[in-house]
């Protein structure tokens, strides 16, 4: 509409000029993690982004609002919603499972354990027959990994999570996928994002490789916190900075309550 000019205009300006805005605080570790998660959905096209966890959810919504506008997002229940929450579709669990099998989805799951080939465990710790710690259960990890790209999010990178060998393979890693080339024809684990960096499997044997470090993290820190030796290239880039526009979206629009800092403290 046209500005009618009523009410807000002032003819006299007696107030002192406002101070220049101070530059926004630099990106936090949590915000680098948001960017690293959002990047998982770059160039994904018109598919469902299924983020699990606070920071992947912020990342998916950031991607949807910026460089991946065709993404589908759910409200966490049965509705497909636009960035402002407008309902645009219905996706109850049974249709969600069909969508998984159809492959038009990139999920980012959690991992209680993950190994060098990207095998993931969310079922239990210890012997499955009598676990020392019962966790969630296999959930949809197996159908996810055999049917659509599956990435992982680990908010606290440690040797308890990044293990030599997972206790129960839920999400299928590259070594097991290679044993079933027909059934695993759609298998792909694009990335693992942790609070220390981004990892991928772009090595000859599809073992985990350090793809980028979040600024402030060293290669030694990653090695110390990883229960196997990840592939480390000679030059490790840093996770890219958020743009000023992305930072404003994260801080003011998508997560004004700063829930991201509860998942990855500053």
């Amino acid at each position, binding site marked *: 509409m046209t500005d009618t000019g009523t009410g807000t205009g002032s003819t006299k300006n007696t107030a002192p000029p406002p101070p220049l805005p101070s530059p926004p605080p630099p990106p936090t570790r949590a915000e680098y993690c948001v960017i690293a998660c959002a990047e998982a959905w770059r160039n994904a096209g018109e598919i469902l982004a299924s983020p699990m966890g606070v920071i992947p959810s912020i990342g998916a919504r950031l991607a949807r609002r910026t460089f991946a506008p065709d993404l589908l997002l759910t409200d966490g229940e049965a509705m497909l919603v636009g960035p402002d929450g407008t309902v645009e579709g219905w996706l109850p669990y049974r249709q969600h499972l069909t969508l998984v099998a159809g492959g038009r989805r990139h999920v980012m799951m959690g991992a209680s354990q993950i190994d060098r080939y990207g095998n993931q465990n969310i079922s239990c710790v210890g012997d499955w027959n009598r*676990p020392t*710690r*019962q966790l*969630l*259960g296999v959930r949809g*990890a*197996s159908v996810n990994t055999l049917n659509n790209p599956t990435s992982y999010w680990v908010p606290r990178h440690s040797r308890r999570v990044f293990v030599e060998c997972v206790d129960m393979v839920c999400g299928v890693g590259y070594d097991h*996928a290679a044993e079933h080339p027909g059934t*695993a024809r759609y298998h792909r684990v694009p990335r693992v994002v942790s609070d220390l960096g981004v990892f991928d499997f772009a090595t000859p044997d599809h073992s985990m490789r350090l793809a980028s470090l979040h600024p402030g993290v060293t290669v030694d820190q990653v090695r110390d916190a990883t229960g196997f030796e990840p592939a480390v290239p000679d030059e490790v880039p840093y996770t890219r900075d958020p743009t000023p526009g992305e930072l404003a979206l994260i801080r003011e629009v998508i997560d004004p309550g700063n829930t991201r800092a509860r998942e990855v403290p500053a």
Partner: protein
Amino acid sequence: MTADEAVARLASGMTLGIGGWGSRRKPMALVRALLRSDVTDLTVISYGGPDVGMLAAAGRIRKLVTAFVTLDSIPLEPHYRAARERGALDLMEIDEAMFLWGLQAAANRLPFLPVRAGIGSDVMRVNPGLRTVTSPYDDGETFVAMPALRMDAALVHLSRADRQGNGQYLGPDPYFDDLFCEAADTAYVSCERLVDTAELTKEAAPQTLLVKRHTVTGVVEAPNGAHFTSCAPDYGRDEALQKRYATTPWAQFAARFLAGDERAYRSAVRAAHEEEGT
């Protein structure tokens, strides 16, 4: 019928399917009635929530068939977890999609359905009885042959139903409740409100009529029958009571909340909320 009358039709050793998902629209009034009965040694098939936690804590489950057990807002179900860690039950742990195709196979009177899940994962290791099947067409792909999940009885909770067993959901997700009823030899539907048949479609679209009467054995009117799990749109999850359930030793929780009938349960819940000011 009443919840106790429905449960009186069940017997120890049965295979029992329980509808809902996690801590959402679980037939908790029927589960509470089950806990008041002496029915035990059950094989329970469920996308598990507090239904599984309570029955496991009470020692009623011999074998569980599930993809997960969770309270949603509290990710790990503490009573199920304790039961697993003390080796109290047998488990058939399968993927969510395998579970769905097991229900579909049972509903369609098929021995199995092929599904691209499980292969390459330890689901195959922990279920040595699972078989695979190879496509007879040119692709020759190998799938899991997910066996039908047939059950003696199913318990589900819906928003509305009529006396004949036509059941309606008014929330956003049907979950798999119709499939549970179709996969079972008998099915008991509890509902928030029992209404005349004509009232079902007075204000709601016909596709909300999820469960058909030919698949239903008995209907129970159970207001708050999913409590403390959610039953949209009638009520959300009672997070305060769920938290109390998750943090109270089982015997203590059962003595306070589950010793009496539904009326006693509701007044115990009211008293708990008054104590906490919630």
